[in-house]
């Protein structure tokens, strides 16, 4: 199984993602410059966090027009796996690969802290090694993480079991106080209809070593690696 980490001008979590894949997942991984368009070699892509194009216009809005993104759309359509983290989630929404949008945090601040999220479904390639209801401690670092969508989209996400992680307190209770940014329905991450594309605001790649305060993020990469091993 081979992983690719896409690098846009302004990506800054690309090395963290690369480190986790090579060190903890123990699989080959390449950086893919945003001007490259050949993704044939890869089984899974990570669209990392950062400030692609300086967040000009809207977070993720300009990265959508990078040459690699047409290939990413075809890659996703082929059923292979795409994980968008933070700015990567914003890019996936702007590109129309995931529904909804991420707007300025409710309280305006850039928030950089550890939060808790509850795994709402184990029926995704990214969470299938976890129990539904598992609580993960993961860091967030964003100014635009407030997930918005219309009522119809929310109902569809709920009916199709596509809300993958939601902000919760340390006991796994979904509360308003545990919602750091005002996201609708405490949504921290969603997947597409085919379930092979996941976007989430928290950073699992920054939570894979106890030294960093949490290693809960490993479960997401462990799930993805198990999925890839099963389809290989």
């Amino acid at each position, binding site marked *: 199984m081979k992983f690719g980490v896409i690098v846009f001008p302004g990506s800054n979590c690309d090395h963290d993602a690369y480190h986790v894949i090579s060190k903890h997942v123990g699989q080959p991984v390449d950086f893919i410059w945003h001007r490259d368009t050949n993704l044939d070699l890869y089984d899974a892509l990570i669209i990392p966090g950062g400030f692609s194009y300086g967040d000009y*216009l*809207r977070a993720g809005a300009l990265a959508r027009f990078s040459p690699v993104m047409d290939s990413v759309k075809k890659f996703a359509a082929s059923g292979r796996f795409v994980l968008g983290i933070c700015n990567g989630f914003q890019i996936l*929404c*702007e590109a129309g690969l995931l529904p909804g949008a991420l*707007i*300025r945090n*409710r*309280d*305006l601040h850039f928030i950089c802290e550890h939060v808790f999220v509850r795994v709402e479904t184990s029926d995704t390639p990214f969470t299938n090694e976890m129990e539904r209801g598992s609580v993960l401690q993961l860091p967030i670092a964003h100014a635009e993480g407030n997930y*918005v969508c219309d009522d119809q989209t929310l109902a569809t996400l709920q009916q199709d079991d596509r809300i993958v992680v939601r902000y919760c307190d340390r006991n796994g209770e979904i509360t308003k106080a545990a919602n750091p940014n005002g996201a609708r329905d405490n949504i921290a991450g969603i997947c597409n209809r085919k379930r092979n594309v996941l976007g989430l605001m928290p950073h699992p790649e920054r939570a894979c070593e106890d030294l960093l305060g949490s290693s809960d993020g490993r479960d997401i990469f462990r799930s993805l690696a198990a999925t890839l091993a099963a389809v290989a």
Partner: protein
Amino acid sequence: MKAKVYVSLKPGILDPQGKAIQHSVELLGFDGISDVRQGKYFEISLADTGEPEAARESVSRMAREVLSNPIIEDYRVEIEA
């Protein structure tokens, strides 16, 4: 020819920046303000084709596909000869 594009958040989409600005303006002593919404404004210089309707159509597409995110924003286009 010049195009002006105004992009604003749809009604109902939270605008914490607008709220913060309103608060500051009120601190300055301006009263009677019921709401402030912050938006974006673009000026686009166009080749003078003498076809304002074609220009409007083209800039509207630009506004729809790039300058605004239709999930959260509305846009308005003005063409100046």
